[in-house]
C-alpha cells in the first residue's frame, strides 16, 4: 500500500479533505435555495462520508508510514515567502494523534445527528475544525503550526457560542480569551526564534536548539512563553477554569473534540517544542511543572467530587488526567514520556466516550444535572453497561486503556521524585470516589423521577457511535504494547534531545 501513496501528498490530502468537504457543502448550499430537513440530512450524511473518507485516507498514510523509522516521514515541502515554507511531515507521535483525530471525528458527526439549528453551518465548522486539528499535528513549519494552532480556536469558539447551552457566550469568551492570551506570548517567542535561527522549519529549529543555539537564559523566556500557551490548552492548574465552563456549554460533539483532541495540543506542544528546543529550561522548570501537575490531580479530583453537573464533573476529571500527562512528560524518561503519550491517546477515547455518554441522556432529557437522573440501568441496561466500562476506564482500571498511561507516568515520575509520584497516586483513590459516585447517582437505584419512566436505551446510531470506542478502550487496555511500540521511536528521540542538552 505504501507504493500506492508514493508520490502523493498524503498528509495534505488527509489534512485538507475535510476542508474541501466544507467547501462542497457551502457550494451545495448556494445552489440549494433555502434549507429544509431533507437538505439537512443530506448534509449530515455527506459530512459523515467526508470524515470517514478522511479516516480512510489517514489509514493509507498510516500504512505508508514506517514506525521503526525515528525520522519525520511522508514529508512535503513547498517554499513559501520569506524563508517560511508549507512543510508537512509526521513522526510516530504526530501520526498517532492524527489517527486519534480522524478516528474520533466521524463519531462526533454521528453524535451531531441531533443538531437541528443551522445544520450546514455546523457541519462546515466541524469539518474546518478537523482540518485545522490534523494540520497542527502534521505541520513541520512553526509558522504553519501556529496558524493551525490558533485558527482552530475560531470554529470551536463559534461552535460553543452558537450551538451551546444557556451561558454559552460567557463560556465561549472565557475559552477564547484564555487561549488567545497564552498564544500571543507564544507568537512573540516564535518570532524571536525565527529571527535568531533564521529558519522556521521545526526539525531545523530543533537541530539549531540542540546545537546550543539558544542560551539557557534565553531558553527560560522562550520556555515560559510557550508554556503560557500550552498550559492553558492542557489545561494545567491554575489556568484550568475555562475548561469546565466550555464543556458545560458546548454541544456534545464539540465537548468530545475539545476533551479528546484540543487538549492534546498542549501535551503535543510540550513534547514537540519545549523539551527538544529548550531542554535546559525544561530541566530547570521540571519541579515547577511537577508541582502544578500534582496540584491539578488532587485539586481537580476533589472538586470533581462535588460537582452537580455531569459534564463539569467529567471536565474536572480531565484536568486531573492531564496532570498525569504533564507529570509524565517532564519526568523525561522512557516510562514517563511513553506513559504520557499513551495517556493522551487513551484520554482521548475515554473522555470522548464519557462526554458521549452524557450526550445520550442529555439528548433525551435536556439536562445534565446529576440529581435529575437515577436508576437508568432499569430502562437502559446497554447504556448502563457502556457507561460502566468508560467509568472504569476513567478510574484507570487495568484492562482498560486508562491504566497503562497512569501507571507509566507515575513510574516515570517516581524515578525523578518519589514524593511527586506518591501525590499523584492519591488521584487514583479520588478518581474512584468521584467516578463511582457519579455512576451510582445516574445509573443505579430505582427510577425515582417519573420523567425517566419512558427513557429509551441506545438506538442504532448510538450503538455505532460507541462500539469503536469500546473496542479501542479494551484493545488499548489489554494489549497496550502495540501502541507503545508504535510511539517508542518518538519517545526515544525526545528523551535523547531532552537529556543530551542537559549535560
Amino acid at each position: 500500500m505504501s507504493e500506492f501513496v508514493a508520490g502523493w501528498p498524503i498528509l495534505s490530502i488527509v489534512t485538507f479533505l475535510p476542508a474541501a468537504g466544507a467547501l462542497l457543502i457551502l457550494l451545495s448550499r448556494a445552489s440549494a435555495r433555502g434549507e429544509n430537513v431533507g437538505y439537512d440530512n443530506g448534509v449530515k450524511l455527506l459530512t459523515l462520508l467526508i470524515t470517514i473518507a478522511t479516516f480512510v485516507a489517514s489509514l493509507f498514510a498510516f500504512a505508508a508510514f514506517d514506525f521503526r523509522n525515528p525520522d519525520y516521514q511522508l514529508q512535503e515541502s513547498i517554499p513559501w515567502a520569506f524563508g517560511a515554507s508549507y512543510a508537512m511531515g509526521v513522526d510516530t507521535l504526530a501520526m498517532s494523534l492524527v489517527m486519534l483525530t480522524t478516528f474520533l471525528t466521524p463519531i462526533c458527526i454521528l453524535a451531531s445527528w441531533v443538531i437541528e439549528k443551522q445544520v450546514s453551518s455546523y457541519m462546515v465548522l466541524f469539518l474546518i475544525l478537523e482540518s485545522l486539528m490534523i494540520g497542527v499535528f502534521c505541520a513541520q513549519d512553526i509558522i504553519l503550526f501556529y496558524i493551525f494552532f490558533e485558527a482552530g480556536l475560531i470554529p470551536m469558539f463559534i461552535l460553543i457560542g452558537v450551538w451551546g447551552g444557556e451561558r454559552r457566550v460567557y463560556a465561549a469568551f472565557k475559552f477564547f480569551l484564555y487561549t488567545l492570551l497564552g498564544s500571543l506570548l507564544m507568537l512573540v517567542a516564535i518570532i524571536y526564534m525565527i529571527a535568531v535561527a533564521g529558519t522556521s522549519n521545526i526539525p531545523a529549529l530543533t537541530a539549531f536548539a540542540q546545537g546550543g543555539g539558544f542560551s539557557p537564559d534565553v531558553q527560560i523566556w522562550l520556555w515560559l512563553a510557550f508554556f503560557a500557551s500550552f498550559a492553558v490548552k492542557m489545561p494545567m492548574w491554575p489556568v484550568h477554569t475555562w475548561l469546565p465552563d466550555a464543556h458545560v456549554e458546548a454541544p456534545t460533539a464539540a465537548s468530545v473534540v475539545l476533551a479528546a483532541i484540543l487538549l492534546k495540543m498542549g501535551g503535543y506542544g510540550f513534547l514537540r517544542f519545549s523539551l527538544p528546543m529548550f531542554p535546559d529550561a525544561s530541566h530547570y522548570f521540571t519541579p515547577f511543572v511537577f508541582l502544578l501537575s500534582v496540584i491539578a490531580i488532587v485539586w481537580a479530583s476533589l472538586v470533581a467530587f462535588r460537582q452537580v453537573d455531569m459534564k463539569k464533573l467529567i471536565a474536572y476529571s480531565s484536568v486531573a488526567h492531564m496532570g498525569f500527562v504533564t507529570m509524565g512528560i517532564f519526568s523525561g524518561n522512557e516510562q514517563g514520556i511513553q506513559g504520557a503519550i499513551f495517556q493522551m491517546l487513551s484520554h482521548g477515547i475515554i473522555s470522548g466516550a464519557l462526554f458521549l455518554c452524557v450526550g445520550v441522556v442529555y439528548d433525551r432529557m435536556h439536562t445534565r444535572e446529576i440529581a435529575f437522573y437515577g436508576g437508568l440501568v432499569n430502562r437502559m441496561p446497554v447504556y448502563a453497561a457502556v457507561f460502566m466500562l468508560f467509568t472504569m476506564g476513567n478510574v484507570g482500571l487495568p484492562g482498560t486503556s486508562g491504566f497503562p498511561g497512569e501507571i507509566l507516568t507515575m513510574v516515570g515520575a517516581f524515578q525523578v521524585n518519589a514524593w511527586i509520584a506518591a501525590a499523584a497516586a492519591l488521584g487514583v483513590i479520588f478518581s474512584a470516589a468521584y467516578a463511582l459516585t457519579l455512576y451510582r447517582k445516574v445509573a443505579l437505584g430505582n427510577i425515582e423521577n417519573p420523567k425517566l419512566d419512558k427513557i429509551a436505551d441506545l438506538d442504532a446510531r448510538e450503538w455505532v457511535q460507541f462500539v469503536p470506542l469500546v473496542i479501542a478502550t479494551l484493545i488499548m487496555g489489554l494489549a497496550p504494547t502495540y501502541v507503545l511500540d508504535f510511539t517508542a521511536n518518538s519517545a526515544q528521540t525526545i528523551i535523547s534531545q531532552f537529556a543530551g542538552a542537559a549535560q
Partner: protein
Amino acid sequence: MQFSPEVLIVVGPLIAAAFAGLLQRYIGDRVAMIVTTASIGLSLVLSWPIFIDFVWGEGHEKLIEIAPFIHVGDFQSTWSVRIDTMSAIMLVVVNTVSFLVHLYSWGYMSEDPHKARFFSYLSFFTFAMLALVTANDFIQLFFGWEGVGVASYLLIGFWYQKRSANDAAIKAFVTNRVGDFGFALGIMAVFFLLGTIQFFPSSADHAALFSGVVNGVEVPGLLHHLEGLNLTIGSLSVPAAELCAVLLFIGAMGKSAQFFLHVWLPDAMEGPTPVSALIHAATMVTAGVFMVCRLGELYHMAPIASGIVTIVGAATALFAATVGLAQNDIKRVVAYSTCSQLGYMFFAAGVGAYNAAMFHLFTHAFFKALLFLGAGSVIHGLHHEQDMRYMGGVRKPMMITWAMMTIGTFALIGFGIPGLGGFAGFYSKDAIIEAAYGSSGIGAQFAFWCGVTAALLTSFYSWRLAFMTFEGKYRGNPDAHHHDDHAHGDAHAHDDHGHGHDAHAKPADGTAPAHESPWVMLIPLFVLAAGAVAAGAIFAPYFLGEHAAEFWNHVVPLAHAEGGHHDFPAWVIWAPLTVTVTGFIFAVIFYLWKPGAAKAMAGGPVWAFLYNKWYFDELYDFIFVKGARAFGDLFWKVGDKRLIDGLGPDGVAATSNFFSRNLRRLQTGFVYHYSFIMLIAAVAFGAYAILAGIGGGR
C-alpha cells in the same frame, strides 16, 4: 504465543463470562448458567492434577508466556501463567470454591431475574483471580488485583436498586484503592531499585530459577537483589527492602481487610451470599496473604516490615473477633470471623511461617465457604431472614444444613487433640500459634497472645452463632419484611416462595417454619464439609510436616520447615484446645443454659462499642468523607470561583459583556462568513506579525 491447558484454566472463565454477559439477551439464563458453570468445572478438572503433581508427584514448575502486556524499556510485563507450588495451591482453592459456588447459585439465585448477569460476574471474578495467582510480574498481579476488585464491586452492588448495596460497593472499591495507593508505590519503588517488575526470571531453565540466598534460605526470585540497597528520597535514606515490603503490604491490607482498612468487608455482605462465600471469604480477601507469601523472599529480608505485618495481622485477628461477639446479622458474624482469620494468616507470614499462612488460607477456604454457604442455606430456608435474633429452632427443619454448619464450626474453631488429630482448622491454626510463639521476630509474642485470645473469642462467637440460629425456640421477626436482604425490587421474587406465606406464624413446638434447601445447594456443602474435616490431616505433612521441603521447592522461604510439636512447651501446644473448650462452655452458658444473661449484657457501653465496630465507620466518615467534601468545596468555590476566576476572567467581565452584545449577531445566520473572515484575519495577522518580526530581526 503458546497454548496449553494451563492457559485454558485462566482464560476459559473469561470467555464464558464474556459469552454469558454479552449475549445474555439471546441465549437466556439457562445457557449462561450452563456455560459459566461448565467452564469453571473444566478449570477445576484441569487444576487438580497440577496440584496433585506438586503434592504426590514431581512438581513441574512452568512459566508460560502468552503475549506482551506493557513493555516500555525495562518495565516489562507479560501475560503469563506461572505454575509452581503457590499458584497450584491457589488454582485448586479458587476453582474448587468457585465451581461449588456456581453450582450453589443455581439454587440460591433461582428466583433472581438477573441470573445471566450474576453468573457472568462470578466467572469474570474467577478469571481475574486466576490471572492474579498465576502472575509472573507485578503488573499482571495488579491487573488481577484490580480485576477482582471490580468484580467484587459489581457483585456487592448486584442488587442495584438497593442504596445500601451500592454504597457498600463503592466503599469496598474506594477502600481497596487506598490500599492500592501503597501497592502502586511499592511497584514503582521495586522498579526504580531493581529495574524489573518480574518476580522470577523468564528463563525456562529450571536451575536458573534458584537464583539467590537470603538469610541462609535459597530463594527462586529476583527480589532478593534488593538486599543491602537503600532508597534515598530527599534527605531520607531507608533500606529498600523494608520500604517496598511496607508499601506493598498496604495493598494487602486493603484487599484482605486488615485493621484500619477493614471497614469495607462487613458492608460487603450486602452482596448475595454465594458472593460472600467465594469472594469475601475464600478467595479474593486472601489475595493479600497470597501476595505476602509470594513475595516471601522480600519479607524474609525485611524484619521491620515483617514486624508490621505481624502486629497488624495480630491486631486484626483480635479486633475482628471482639466485634464478631456482638453482631446480630448472621453474615456479619461470619464476615468478622473472616477478617479475624485473615489476621492469623498475616501474622503467620509476618513471623516467617509462610507455609503455615498458606496452609491456613487453604483450609480456611473450605470451612469458611462452608459456613457462608450454610448461612446462605439458613437465610434461604427462612425466607431471607438474616438477623439471628429472629432465628432459633432451625435445627429440626434443616437437619442437613445444621450438620454441615456444625462441621464448619468445628473446623473454624480449630478443634482437635494435639498428637491425635482434628478438623482442618486445627492443623493450620495451631501451627500458626506455635510459629508465633517460637519466633523471635518483632511483635511475635504479641501475636501469640492475640492469637490465643482470638481463638477463645472465635470459639465463643462461633457457638453463639450456632446456638442462636439452630437451638432454642423460633423467635420470628415481628416486622418481617423490613429486615429483608433480597431486594429484587419486584415483589414476585417473594411470591415464588409459595410455601412461605405462613412463615412468620410461630408454630407451637418452637421449631422454625423453615424448609431445607434443594440438593443443588446441599451438595456443595457436602464437598466443602469433606474438605473441612479432612483437608488438614491429608495435606499437613506437605504444607507443614516432613514433606514440606519437597512440596514447597524453595518457592517460599521455609524457616519453620521442621514441623512437629516437639519444640514447644506443653502449655503452648495445649493452649488453643483449652481456650476453644472454654469459649464453647461460655457460649453454652450464655446462649443455651441462661439466655437471659446475654440479653442483660447487651446494651452496656462495652457491648455498644463492639456492636458499633469500635466506631470506625463514624470516625472515617467524619475524617475522610466529610474531609473530602470540605476540601472539594473549598477548592471549587473559593479556589476556582472566587480566587482564580475572580481575579482572572471575571475581573474583565465588562469586556465580555461588550463582546457578548456583538456575538448575538452571529446567531442570526451566515456563521460561515464570519468563521472564514476570522480565519483569514488570523492568517493575515500571523503572517504580518511574522514578516514584520523577521524584517526587524535582520
